[in-house]
């Protein structure tokens, strides 16, 4: 049974502010067990894609940087290149986008480093004995660090159900090449009845895999690499969808990649899940949309499976929010399966596989930090 610590989001008086109480959660994490004084500690964050606005507020990240420093560690912040960093696939472009959001040293205490190099090709290839993957390219900086803190903004995920600790570890911890491997099954299906032929998806596709044919558009399976966010996110009509089998394969690849990243970090990994601004899309989407459930608080654990299970359980206990995808999916009532209702993908399957794969346990003891 794993321990998951919980810090409630509600703030009622000055000393009870989140920033004031955050220190208790950081202390409870027992981070000194993960590294020696002077060690490099990588802190994995999501700077988020251009157009996404519900990213984690930088002061929360700064608090973690300062905690590592206070404990004698030498922290550095990383994100890894996205499948498509806006108009360019070079790291400076993502850094420019993130600077404009406040992810800079003067705000965070440290500059954000692109953890997989200038073009996303600085990696260490680690073997995996998985159903889906034989290996994955892990971001070099994680392989170099002595410890890893994974700071995740929790959201739903249209193809994994949940974006939490496992997704941040597995997808976020992989270099660009590894991300392509993880996403490869996600080749979208175009539904002709819904397609308007507007071509917005064609403009987004890096690979030129969408082309006009007759009256409509088709997706060329040969060319499609499955990066999927750009075309599906661009479609105003929901005409591009991913089928259930592909989603499950994607979930398994996330888990398998996560296990490799965990090994690369020598097992010295701690996870913080921030359940704020829990929107329908993860940070690497080009837009955020309204939160689907109210803010919960912050959860923390050594065990990413237990942490994501606790995260799901909290989300299920919450009511859905009006004027959000929760309302559109009929998921306003508290109750199990909320994310499955909203995304069509069951995140519990990912956690089941993760437990099977040895990444952790779904059974946890919740300890509230007050």
């Amino acid at each position, binding site marked *: 049974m794993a321990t998951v610590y919980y810090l409630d989001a509600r703030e009622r008086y000055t000393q009870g502010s989140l920033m004031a109480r955050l220190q208790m959660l950081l202390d409870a994490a027992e981070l000194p067990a993960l590294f020696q004084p*002077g060690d*490099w500690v990588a802190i994995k964050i999501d700077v988020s894609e251009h157009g996404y606005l519900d990213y984690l507020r930088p002061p929360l990240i700064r608090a973690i940087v300062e905690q590592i420093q206070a404990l004698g560690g*030498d922290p550095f912040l990383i994100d890894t290149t996205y499948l498509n960093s806006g108009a360019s696939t070079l790291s400076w472009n993502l850094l420019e986008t993130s600077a404009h959001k406040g992810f*800079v*040293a*003067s705000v965070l205490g440290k500059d954000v480093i692109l953890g997989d190099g200038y073009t996303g090709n600085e990696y*260490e290839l680690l073997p995996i004995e998985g159903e889906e993957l034989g290996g994955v390219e892990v971001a070099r900086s994680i*392989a*170099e660090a002595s410890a890893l803190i994974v700071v995740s903004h929790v959201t739903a995920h249209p193809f994994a159900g949940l974006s939490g600790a496992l997704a941040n570890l597995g997808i976020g911890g992989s270099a660009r090449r590894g991300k392509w491997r993880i996403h490869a099954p996600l080749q979208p299906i175009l539904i002709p009845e819904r397609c308007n032929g507007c071509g917005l998806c064609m403009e987004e596709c890096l690979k030129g895999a969408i082309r006009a044919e007759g009256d409509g558009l088709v997706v060329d399976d040969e060319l499609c690499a499955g990066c999927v966010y750009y075309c599906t996110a661009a479609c105003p009509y929901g005409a591009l969808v991913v089928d259930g089998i592909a989603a499950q394969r994607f979930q398994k690849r996330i888990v398998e990649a996560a296990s490799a990243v965990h090994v690369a970090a020598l097992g010295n990994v701690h996870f913080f899940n921030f359940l704020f601004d829990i929107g329908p899309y993860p940070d690497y989407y080009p837009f955020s949309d309204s939160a689907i459930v109210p803010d919960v608080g912050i959860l923390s654990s050594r065990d990413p499976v237990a942490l994501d299970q606790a995260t799901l359980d909290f989300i299920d206990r919450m009511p859905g929010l009006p004027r959000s995808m929760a309302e559109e999916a009929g998921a306003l009532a508290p109750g199990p399966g909320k994310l499955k209702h909203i995304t069509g993908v069951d995140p519990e399957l990912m956690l089941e596989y993760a437990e099977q794969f040895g990444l952790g346990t779904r059974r946890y003891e919740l300890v509230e930090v007050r």
Partner: protein
Amino acid sequence: MAEKAKVWFADASATNWTESLVCKAKDLFYEAKLNECIEKGDSVAIKIHIGEWNRTRCLRPELVAAIVEEVKACGGQPFVVDTTTLTYHAYNSRCTGALELENAARHGFTEASMGCPVVIGDGFSGDDDVRVELPTGVVLKEAYVAAALAHADAMINLAHAKGHPITSFGGCIKNIGIGGQSKRGKYHEHLAHWGSPEDFIGWPASYPEKCLGVKCEFHQQCMDGCPRGAIRIDETGFHRDTEKCYLCYSCQVTCIFTGHESQTFIPDYFPYAQMAMSDAALGVMLTFEPGKVGHMAYAIDVDPNCDCIPWATLPATPDIGVFASKDPVAIDTAILDMIDAAPVYPGGANKAFEGREYKRGQEKFAITQGASPRYQLMAGVKNGLGTMDYELITYEPPLTREHVAKWQIRTTPTTLIVRRMWEKRDFLKEVQPFKRVPFAEKPPYQDFAVPDRTEYLKKLPVKEWVEALGK
């Protein structure tokens, strides 16, 4: 007051880690006991000269960050501060708070590079100040001190020592004497409206008959450069509304630096400007409790022009070093003595004052600026700011293992991090052997020797150097 003031000095040369100017500056901060000016929790103003846009001899940001770091180490809460300026040239980049911060960022002074906030001490428009009475003032009887300095608990007066076209020299006295005043204070010490227009002190020395009028290429810049709209140049010539003139120097700067002679200064102006500056410096000191201010100066890039000038010329002397003291008059006295004793930097004489050559041992800045730089020191003695009687203590850092490590980016060798990296994966071995010409077949390096270049050097378009090469 028979006791000499101590001034610490470390020279600009360096041959190992401990001798970097950054390290010496940090060492002097403690040698001169400037750390004693700071109590835990004190707000500490680190007064610098941010430098005008396109000025290329301002202090390098790390020379300031070095002191910010030590103030923090003492438990102080530092902020880097400079004030807005008068519009002393038509394209002045520091006349409002917003422009000055943009200007500061371009020079590399940002919160990120300093490790602390960068503040404009007299607010957006420059009127945020505190009025201070100066009963001992030799020219000024009041000062208007920038609010951020007046309200700080402590201050490190971190100056760049160089010349100045008006005050002849700018060091620690000038950094607070001019730089620590609000806009109001700067106009006041420019001596605006002192005497009458015909005295040419509280107003420019104006020779309308020498103005080229509308035929002057820069007559529009002259008119536009006046923030009060006091100047009109038309077919009838040059006209100034003396009621409106606040003596910002803009018209004089336009005239002088474009090689004209109509709007200028009389020689008497410069000593009075220095004396007023020392009074104003006293005003800043009076806003601090005794013992709460330390003074430091970097005498490098010792340009005859100040950082307020939007260009830099060749320096007057080679780099001299860094100074620290608790007495602002003593430190400037020591710096000026060192500048005058220092060798002349070849080619180093302000091009605007051609024909004047520096000679070692003479008052260098008196030669180019037209007035001795030492009036400000005597005024500082007479108004109680400090003493010219100093004892110079030369500091050399010890070459020990601890001292090498002390001011580095980490106190343990970073090579150990890379050692662990190689142990995990040696990415050089993966590509070795490197593709090169086999060692036995290497080309003789002698084939790559370049013969004597003297013939080509003599063709360079720099007359003095070519002459020096001889035949």
